[in-house]
């Protein structure tokens, strides 16, 4: 399990990296944390001619606050997000989700930008970004654009990012008072990819839920926003009937495929169990 040969360039600035991407197109791969990429290279499931290492480009890492957004540089590692006080204050959901991403040794290298770009539907960050209505800052030589997380993920491992573009940052809208959040996922073992997971945001006022957002991990070809369930819960006290309606709505919201150990029907069932448990925890 040794990778195929490739040429390696350690880009020193963003323009250089973008120029290399323009030149080599699909033959080039961006190397960030490498925690997924290098495993696939070792298995020769992927064999790019060029690997463009962007990890030492200054300015792509770190967590900052603007007037309107919490901004997370694409090269920020999972571990940094897990430990960030700013994240804990302004997007606690991310801090709750981070411990579910693999293990510390992986989180020390893996980056949020890499996770978003790879777009594994079983990964945690994409679903969190969808729930948080985050947007991604995407850079090409021709300029910069911003794309909503809710439109960025197009299909299985397929995104709105073109081969010559680099995600430089994740921007999460600042809220006057951050919503409550719960992240829950089921994995066969601690640290495994999720079978299914849920990212739940909402406010609770006298037992009633509002501003509800629900993102799902592992419940379709892309991270999903469970809009039916969100509508069922919005403005409601989460009693048994409401919960039943929300869970029923998941039938339309989700479209899981089976894996080695779980059929689609099982995943739908587990997704519903998780929703109920997450709502109860949000209310608690």
């Amino acid at each position: 399990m040794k990778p195929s040969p490739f040429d390696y360039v350690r880009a020193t600035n963003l323009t250089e990296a973008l120029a290399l991407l323009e030149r080599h197109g699909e033959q080039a791969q961006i190397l960030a944390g490498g925690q997924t990429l290098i495993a696939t290279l070792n298995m020769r499931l992927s064999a790019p001619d060029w690997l463009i290492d962007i990890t030492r480009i200054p300015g792509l890492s770190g967590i900052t606050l603007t007037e309107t957004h919490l901004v997370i540089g694409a090269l920020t590692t999972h571990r940094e997000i897990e430990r960030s006080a700013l994240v804990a204050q302004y997007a606690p959901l991310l801090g709750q989700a981070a411990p579910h991403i693999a293990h510390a040794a992986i989180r020390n290298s893996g980056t949020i930008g890499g996770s978003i770009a790879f777009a594994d539907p079983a990964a945690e960050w994409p679903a969190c970004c969808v729930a948080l209505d985050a947007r991604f800052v995407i850079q090409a030589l021709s300029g910069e654009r911003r794309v909503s997380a809710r439109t960025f993920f197009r299909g299985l491992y397929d995104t709105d990012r073109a081969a010559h573009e680099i995600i430089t940052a994740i921007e999460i809208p600042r809220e006057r008072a951050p919503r409550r959040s719960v992240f829950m996922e089921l994995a066969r073992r601690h640290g495994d990819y999720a079978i299914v997971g849920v990212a739940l945001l909402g406010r609770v006022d006298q037992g009633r839920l509002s501003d509800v957002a629900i993102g799902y991990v592992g419940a379709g070809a892309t991270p999903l926003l469970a809009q039916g369930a969100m509508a069922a819960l919005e403005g409601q006290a989460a009693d048994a009937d409401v919960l039943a309606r929300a869970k029923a709505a998941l039938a339309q919201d989700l479209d899981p495929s089976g894996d080695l150990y779980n059929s689609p029907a099982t995943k739908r069932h587990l997704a519903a169990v998780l929703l109920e448990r997450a709502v109860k925890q949000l209310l608690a």
Partner: protein
Amino acid sequence: MKQPITLQVNQNTYDIEAEPRRTLADALREDCGLTGTHLGCEHGVCGACTVIVDGDPMRACLMFAVQAEGRAIRTVEGLAAGATLHPLQQAFIDHHALQCGFCTAGFLMLATSLIERADPPDDQELLDALSSNLCRCTGYKNIVNAVRAASVALRQR
């Protein structure tokens, strides 16, 4: 195409020649002669190749040697202080925390980064962290006990 790469391992400098595709694990083992770091899966799951890079545990199979240039690497060979075993190594003997020894270096480096921190890990944190590596012999109980004991011993030194 091989290229010159300089690695800092256990505070020694190794000037090697390697292709960009050479993983850090292979470079350590074959170019630096540091065979204490083992490869158990080469896809980042088993953790046998765990080394410490700039203070954090990382999988040496999921990093190319060229990426490790300029970073401080610690491997199992650097754990003992000369002739004196690291408290963790001694704890592994005392608690029978290894059998075949193949996963051991990975567990030692993972645990080292954990117990050398300023704040000692609590039991749940310890278990979570140690769950990142696989051992097929011990059933883990003795590894967890050894790391806990070493964490205490390290702070009493």
